[in-house]
């Protein structure tokens, strides 16, 4: 599904590469978790995968289903099935949440030459998906993320993910700022989407999310590259001993 090879990423504001030779392979249906200390480049990686402007690829490649996506615009990557649940979802006054989601879904459908949904069809679909995430009509009618609590923003991201049915779901610290109940709802939302043809890249600080969403692999990312890969027990190790221990081990 996704193959990242020796990726190097520079952002315009910073002189050196933030991502420095990053390798990752995710097969269809797999769930990968990336853990790492603050500033290790996790969000930069997720933005680079989505094609954000200002993120210069200075080396390496990103392939989706065997084809490089580096020359694609963000919207084309989205249409190909890449979805990022933002660490900080943006508040956009004046844009209705509901009409934003319909425009997004129909844009993708149009680009894939599928039939677009009319407002009634869309409303039915969104209501069904929203109910599982405790997103009510009131939230859907508000301007996009404006005045949403931290938890509401994250649930709204997962709702978009459920609507757009991407092939690769990237969750950037979706668990941060969630209370126990919201964490359970979000995890259930994610687990409901798990399928043999959908892969997940879950970026998190804490092991606790991984109790709800069982990963196949856990990677530890430090200073722009993966320093260790393991199974779910690696996350437990981090929780117990911290990153410092792993970094020290690596240096030896």
């Amino acid at each position, binding site marked *: 599904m996704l193959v990242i090879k020796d990726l190097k990423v520079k952002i315009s504001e910073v002189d050196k590469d933030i991502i420095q030779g990053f390798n990752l392979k995710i097969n269809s249906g797999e769930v990968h978790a990336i853990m790492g200390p603050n500033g290790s480049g996790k969000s930069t990686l997720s933005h680079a995968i*989505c094609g*954000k*402007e*200002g993120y210069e690829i200075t080396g390496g490649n990103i392939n989706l289903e065997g084809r490089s996506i580096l020359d694609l*615009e*963000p*919207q084309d*990557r*989205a*249409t190909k099935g890449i*979805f*990022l649940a*933002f660490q900080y*979802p*943006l508040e*956009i*006054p*004046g*844009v209705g949440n509901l009409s*934003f989601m319909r*425009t*997004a*879904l129909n*844009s*993708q459908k149009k*680009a894939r030459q599928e039939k677009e949904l009319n407002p009634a069809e869309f409303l039915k679909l969104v209501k069904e998906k929203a109910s599982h995430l405790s997103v009510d009509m009131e939230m859907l009618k508000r*301007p996009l993320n404006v005045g949403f609590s931290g938890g509401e923003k994250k649930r709204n991201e997962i709702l*978009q993910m459920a609507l*757009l049915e991407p092939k690769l779901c990237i969750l950037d610290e979706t668990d941060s700022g969630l209370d126990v109940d919201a964490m359970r709802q979000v995890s259930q939302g994610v687990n409901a989407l798990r399928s043999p043809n959908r892969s997940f890249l879950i970026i998190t600080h804490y092991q606790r999310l991984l109790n709800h969403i069982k990963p196949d692999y856990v990677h530890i990312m430090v200073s722009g590259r993966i320093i260790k890969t393991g199974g779910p027990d690696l996350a437990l190790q981090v929780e117990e001993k911290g990153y410092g221990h792993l970094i020290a081990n690596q240096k030896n």
Partner: protein
Amino acid sequence: MKNQEKHSINKLDNSRKRSKWALNYQKQCQEDLKKVGMPSRNAEYWKFASPNLWENTGLIPVSGKNFPKNDTQYLENKPEYYVEFVDGIIDPVTLQNLKKKLKECEISNFEESVCDQFHWANKLLGKAETKARKSYERPFALLNGGGSSQGIFLNCKESPRKPIHIFYSGEIEEKVNIRHLLKINCNAELHIIEHFSGNANYNVVTEGFLDSTSILNHNRLVSRFLRNSIITHFFINCMESSVVKTIGITLNNGAVRNETFLNLEGSQCDVTLAGLGVGRNQSSICDNSVFVAHLENSCKSRQIIKNVLTQGAKAVFQGKIYVDPKAQKTDGYQMSNGLILDEKSNFLVKPELEIYADDVICSHGSTSGSLNMEHLFYLKSRGISTNEARKILVEAFLEEVIEEISDLEFSKFVRKEIQDTLI
């Protein structure tokens, strides 16, 4: 501009029948204009947009012509209440119909009003204008006053059920003066929607007199198809606890200057002025020059200006809040935002506060910038094309003004017009 003055005075052929009060006013305007003169390029109040842009406005049309019924009307179904000015001249059929239907208001056209010695307007004509001239001279309004023969005088006694639309249509590039007078009695609410879709160069002056606890709702739309010059003056006098909401939507490719003067003469008035402009090329100039005078205590005023500019378009906002020593507990607010989509376009702003009372809240701000790249990325990351995402963000920027429009049918129409303008 000397010629123009002479021209407009010579053409006044109906003046013989006019009543003394109207003749006096007209003469005064002509004399004052001679004293004041038309504004020069370097006049302070015109430093952002040259008065030459509007030098073709403000002559009276040749009267007594036929009314070419153009079928390029903007609404498929005409609204219930409307009058139409075709090439600057009121269509008598529309006026007749309106008079018949609208029992809540006394309506007459300009000419019949000024020929009536005892007309209700005889103590009002020019009074709000005179007050407005204390802040700045308004030569284009004087030009209008010296040579108007068209307009409607409307005395609103009770609230009409629906908005009254005023259409300005026509194909000919006439130079047109139009003069309206509105009086709204206690407890009445009037909603006026002006729609400019004609090719004439308009000089429109509206004076409004709001009795206590009355409401004036006013919308002005300048069609996206026009490239002509338009200057409007909107002079409103507000008595105690009256409410004004005036919203201007400017979508054309010509020069539009709206001078608004809101005189809060009673306490506890609540006034809102909103302006929205979409400028698409270098002949597009949208100028909102606003003066709000707080003269009594506990009034509230808001000014909200939003301009989207591209391809060398220009927008001007001169907004002043004046607070008299008597006007304690004033709550004044002013915000102007320019969304500038390229380097060729300009958003020129001059906010001013002049405050002589100590117990007031007045805040003002102005921003000017391009599209938010983070917002753009968020939309694109969901599969929305660059063009569509830009459009969504531009519309979102304007939404704050659009949502002020109270008539749902009209706001729907405005939304559609804006969408079509942005394509």
